[in-house]
């Protein structure tokens, strides 16, 4: 049986049904109208002056209890908490910090994150259970609790051993998450191992939608300054302002390669370096292999003597022997230089690598590591697209090691 695009339902806490929300709205209205002095939830002070939406916000807020802080960054503070009525139902509460410098209201990363997570309900996308504000107008996001850390942590830990069946399981979950985003016309624009968090049951969840946006209408320009450098596709490095879900597929390919090699595959020190490393690895983009590429703003023509021919299947098989020939073929389809030739998420999911042996590891048998709660705290406090200096430094060391 092929992997269903939906995979298994995560057994985490239930999301409040939409109908509850509508009912809630009506009952809250009724309540405050008929008996302003009493309310469903007991609270120290009851104020009849509250507006309906304020009351609803308080109701949401009171559903949760914060337990302890697990991470703090410049952008947010993350707490572990639980549902008031059920201490076993853990959640992560991400409180967005108010930036005194930014006078334009709620910051764009927070706007994007809230907007898209409200829409994307899928087992492989981090669940947003609720949003509420405190009286000081700080926004809190109640997110799914993901104590398994992230893929970066597993890739880097030399004590962890994993094989191609595990990679198949992780990549399958990533591909389904990305497929769901694209199916909903959302570009993630920051896929990388430390944005792929792991639930207690081993399920991989796409997180950090601080750089996400909806597909633009044709001819509408977007910024090319997205996606962490090592995972950034050549069209963005060349400054393309119009692009598609193919940018996320490239990142996915880079994650796939990194899972196989256990070091980032193309890790440039600057944007320019990144471009030349991509050319060295996959071939030099030219009008022949990528019609139109020379018209991109930052495209630099390479003189004939330094042209690297487009790499074929045998290169991928040689470079990634653990993937096997079929796995290498899938990887190659994700790493096509020309975004029009790159596989779409649906095409990736239809690839026969998923159905051949070995079968993907079941979630409960996937390698895991303790200490994930702290990692989740760190991951969730990072601003979208923020370069994690620590990560870069340690990864650079790894690279040197890899080149010896």
């Amino acid at each position: 049986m092929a992997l269903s695009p939906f995979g298994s339902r995560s057994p985490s806490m239930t999301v409040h049904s939409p109908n509850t929300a509508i009912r809630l709205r009506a009952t809250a209205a009724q309540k405050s109208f008929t008996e302003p002095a009493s309310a469903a939830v007991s609270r120290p002070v009851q104020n009849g002056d509250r507006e309906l939406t304020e009351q609803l916000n308080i109701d949401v807020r009171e559903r949760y209890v914060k337990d302890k802080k697990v991470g703090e960054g410049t952008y947010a503070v993350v707490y572990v908490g639980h549902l008031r009525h059920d201490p076993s139902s853990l959640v992560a509460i991400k409180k967005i910090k108010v930036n005194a410098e930014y006078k334009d209201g709620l910051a764009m990363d927070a706007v994007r994150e809230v907007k898209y997570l409200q829409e994307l309900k899928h087992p492989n996308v981090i669940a947003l259970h609720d949003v509420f504000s405190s009286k000081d107008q700080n926004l809190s996001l109640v997110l799914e609790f993901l104590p398994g850390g992230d893929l970066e942590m597993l890739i880097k830990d030399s004590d962890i051993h994993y094989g191609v069946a595990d990679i198949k399981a992780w990549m399958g979950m990533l591909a389904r998450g990305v497929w769901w985003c694209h199916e909903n016309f959302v570009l993630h624009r920051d896929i990388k191992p430390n944005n792929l968090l792991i639930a207690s049951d081993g399920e991989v969840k796409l997180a950090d939608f601080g750089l996400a946006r909806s597909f633009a209408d044709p001819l509408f320009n977007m910024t090319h300054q997205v996606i962490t450098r090592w995972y950034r596709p050549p069209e963005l490095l060349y400054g393309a302002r119009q692009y598609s879900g193919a940018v996320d597929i490239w990142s996915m390919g880079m994650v796939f390669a990194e899972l196989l090699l256990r070091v980032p595959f193309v890790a440039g020190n600057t944007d320019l370096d990144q471009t030349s490393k991509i050319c060295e690895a996959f071939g030099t983009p030219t009008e022949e292999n990528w019609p139109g590429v020379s018209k991109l703003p930052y495209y630099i023509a390479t003189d004939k003597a330094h042209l690297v021919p487009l790499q074929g299947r045998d290169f991928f098989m040689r470079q990634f022997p653990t993937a096997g020939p079929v796995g290498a073929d899938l990887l190659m389809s994700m790493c096509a230089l020309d975004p029009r030739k790159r596989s779409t998420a649906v095409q990736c999911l239809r690839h026969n690598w998923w159905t051949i042996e070995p079968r993907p590891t079941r979630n409960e048998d996937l390698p895991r590591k303790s200490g994930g709660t702290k990692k989740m705290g760190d991951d969730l406090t990072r601003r979208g697209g923020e370069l994690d200096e620590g990560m870069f430094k340690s990864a650079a060391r790894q690279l040197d090691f890899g080149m010896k």
Partner: protein
Amino acid sequence: MIEDDIYRTSSQYRLWSYTEPSLQSLRATTNAVASERVRAALRRSREAHQSTATSEAGTPLPESNTEVKNRDEKDVECLTPEEELVLVRYYCEKTLELGETYKPPLPTMVRATAIQYLRRFYLTNSPMTYHPKSIMACALFVATKTDNYYISLRQFADGIPGDTTTEDVIAPEFLLMQGLRFTFDVRHPFRGLEGGVMELQAIAQGQGQPAPHLPHETAEDLQQGLLSIAPPPVPSSSMSDRIARAHGTTRELLKSAAQMTDAYFLYTPSQIWFSAFLLADRPLAEFLLDVKLGGPVTATIPAPETDENGLVNPLYEIRSKLHHVLTECSALLQSYTPLSSDPAQMKNLKRIAKKLYHCQNPEKVNLAAAQKRESTQPSTAVQSDAGVVTSESETERLAKKRKLEQEQKVRQEDDVFGPELVTQRTKQ
């Protein structure tokens, strides 16, 4: 998994879709709650004035006081839900205009999103509590942020005619977002329309694709079918010209009627654009429906259509159901006439505005000033021992309330009528 299932996961479907009765009852509830609040607030402000007057005059006459109070209370006539709706609609039209004043004008999508934000906000808030005038600019600004057209607040405020400050724009942001229940995504009918038009153009050029359940149809069949439909409402030189014209008319309907009516609350984006398309060029729209769902369905055909093999169109039921929905939605869109171009409606609006002047909640009038008061106040976040979210914010809230009352007292001291004596109210 089909598109409908995906749509059902959207916040637009989950939180912002209603039946007509549920929409009506929600508005009635909101209106009733707000009216009650307004009366209470006006009573409070009157009591404040009376006690001030009383203390000035010396010995009060209790009986006459009560009389005055009773009379005043009867006088507070609140807006009806229908009147509130007219007012909101007017400011939705104003939002469209405001978007037009920017250079270049804000994209249609941004303006449409802002209008839907206003409409959603006023499902649970009343214009008596928050005047749409003060929410409108903020809704438009938030829409630039959520719809990928972010411009700085300063630039945005500068673009507003008059002397609107950045504080005026941003003050209700949180209130608005709370009213939107922190869902920012609005699914518009525009993208679907573009797809439909592209499909029709392809058919016209003989490059049409048959629907999956009608595999025997060729591109030529489709092209022939399209060329043999009934003539358009307005004569056109070619099929491609006709499609372009219908496209333009539909877009205009989607920018205006679809925004100003309850269409988004009652129908899905594809139902809305199809209904508008039917109004623009019925034969063309019905042709596209036939291509998608087979078999024409009109009121005059009593029996289900059968295809050449004598089989019933398997999609007949969906088609009939859709026909019914589209007819309703078309009627709703057609019912719309802009307020500003209709003297009778404008007269009614003026009456409502006048009425609102008397039933505006006095405690919520100046949002920017209220915000300033809050932001200048040092944070009073107190972590309670239990680490409970509630108690922390409750403490904060109480602290703020005290502070506000203190400030109010200070301000009142400069008042010619002397200091406010209602501090007793809080003791009660």
